[in-house]
């Protein structure tokens, strides 16, 4: 089983690495981080904060774009090019195919994160800001967020076109960062229907604000290791559930 999943993952990784979208996004991210040098004189007295913010935000934004754009067509592409028939003709189970696709894409995202983070630290060192390891915690929680978002992209990819899938995944990303407002709405609404619906959505939708610790990291505010551990566990359970849904949907498809 492991060999089969590994085979699909390796194939997906190789294919995605050759993808022009991926390379373009990584180059853009590095350029945005490099542009910190240009905006440095404008950030009167707050250069270190602005450069740290800009770098971490660029890493998150471009990795999210990779996850949405590459992940959104990962399964659909196989169906469209009919390569799915070759794949399923082999003794690969459908859920192994989905898991392999997901892990391959996650490997691509890990490589992208490593490249961008390395570039970020080089820029921090060149600017004389100092490369604090503390900042890596924000990269770690970004990885947790990407794990969920990629699972969402893979799920949509099993039954929709790349464009629709990308739009849906982006909508989940957007709403996922506003779920706190759903909880507020539930607490404040006098209507029991709105209350129940808001609480249900709050716990059902991925709460991506769990992973946003950029402000704390940039300000050097104390972080709770227990909360980071919990957010990692949350990402793991949510991702596993989404992959299970994807595999079930894909298992019922007729090819």
């Amino acid at each position, binding site marked *: 089983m492991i060999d089969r999943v590994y085979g699909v993952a390796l194939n997906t990784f190789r294919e995605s690495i050759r993808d022009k979208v991926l390379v373009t996004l990584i180059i853009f991210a590095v350029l945005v981080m490099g542009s910190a040098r240009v905006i440095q004189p404008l950030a009167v007295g707050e250069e270190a904060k602005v450069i740290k913010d800009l770098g971490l935000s660029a890493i998150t934004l471009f990795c999210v774009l990779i996850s949405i754009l590459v992940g959104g067509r990962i399964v659909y592409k196989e169906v469209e090019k009919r390569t799915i028939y070759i794949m399923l003709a082999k003794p690969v189970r459908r859920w192994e195919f989905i898991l392999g696709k997901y892990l391959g894409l996650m490997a691509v995202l890990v490589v992208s994160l490593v490249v961008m983070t390395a570039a970020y630290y080089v820029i921090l060192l060149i600017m004389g800001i100092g490369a604090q390891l503390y900042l890596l915690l924000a990269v770690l929680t970004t990885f947790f967020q990407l794990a969920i978002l990629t699972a969402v992209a893979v799920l949509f990819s099993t039954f929709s076109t790349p464009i629709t899938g990308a739009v849906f995944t982006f909508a989940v990303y957007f709403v996922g960062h506003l779920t706190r407002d759903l909880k507020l709405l539930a607490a404040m609404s006098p209507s029991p229907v709105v209350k129940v619906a808001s609480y249900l959505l709050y716990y059902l939708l991925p709460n991506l604000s769990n992973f946003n610790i950029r*402000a704390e990291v940039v*300000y050097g505010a104390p972080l709770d290791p227990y909360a980071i551990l919990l957010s990692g566990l949350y990402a793991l359970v949510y991702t596993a559930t989404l992959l299970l849904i994807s595999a079930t949907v894909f298992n019922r498809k007729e090819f």
Partner: protein
Amino acid sequence: MLTEVTPRQRAPRGTGPLAGILPAVLIVWGFVGVYLLQLSLDRAGDSRMREKAIAEMAYFPSGRFVRQAAIEYQGLAADIVWLRGIQYYGYHLMSDRKYEWLGHVFSILTSLDPRFTGAYHFGAITLAWDADKPHEALDFLTTGMKANPMSWQVPFDAGFICYMVLRDYDRASTYFEVASKMPNAWFILARWAAIAKAKAGDFQTAREMWLDIFKSTENRKLKELVVRQLANLKLEEATARLQDAVQEFQEDKKRLPADSEEHPFYYELLGAGYIERVPDEPYGGRFYLKDGKVLTTTPPRQRE
């Protein structure tokens, strides 16, 4: 290619462990796990919410920046900041009652949507009373008047703050007059302008003004603030009435009324006819005397 595949090798549709009820059960359990983890995360997050809220607010460099970043979605961005602002206000109201970023939040909000008069109304009143920053509230309203020259609500709020907090009756009267001449202005504004002109600073007028504010808004938080202010006013009025009676008693009898927990001073005032009835303490506390001064056992924090 397909012809080379034997049916036994190929993974068929709808078979294997994912075909039955098992995936549905596992998915439900997965979401139960997600729910439990989110509960734990919410609990862990509560302790650092204050730091997070401050960092979040400080994260917005200025309303102008957010305005540009929001491109054509400034209205939506303003709505999100409004929700965040209410959340920030509510959190501090229930905890430390310190509102250091409140002005900043409302300034961002009105930069994004300068015609959001509800934000000026709520922001100015909470800044003046809860955050104890009446001058900042007036500056905020001045910006609002420039952006909304035909709105009666904004100069009215400025007049209200001048009247109630700053006790600057001339300025309050000017603002009320300006507001009363605006289209669709509230009919009672002319009366308010006259009251301010007459420099009437009594409890009854203040109570009427707060009640007018209560009737004028649908904002639940603002209504709660008015209820608190009315209770405060009632307490101030009762304290002032008792203080006057104690002073009168002292002048006549050359001593203070006897005061103990079992027999509070106001019973002697009542018995001697200095007060007609014992005034209510709106927070349920007890009035007592300390060096001739009437005080209450309700802690100040409870009265804010």
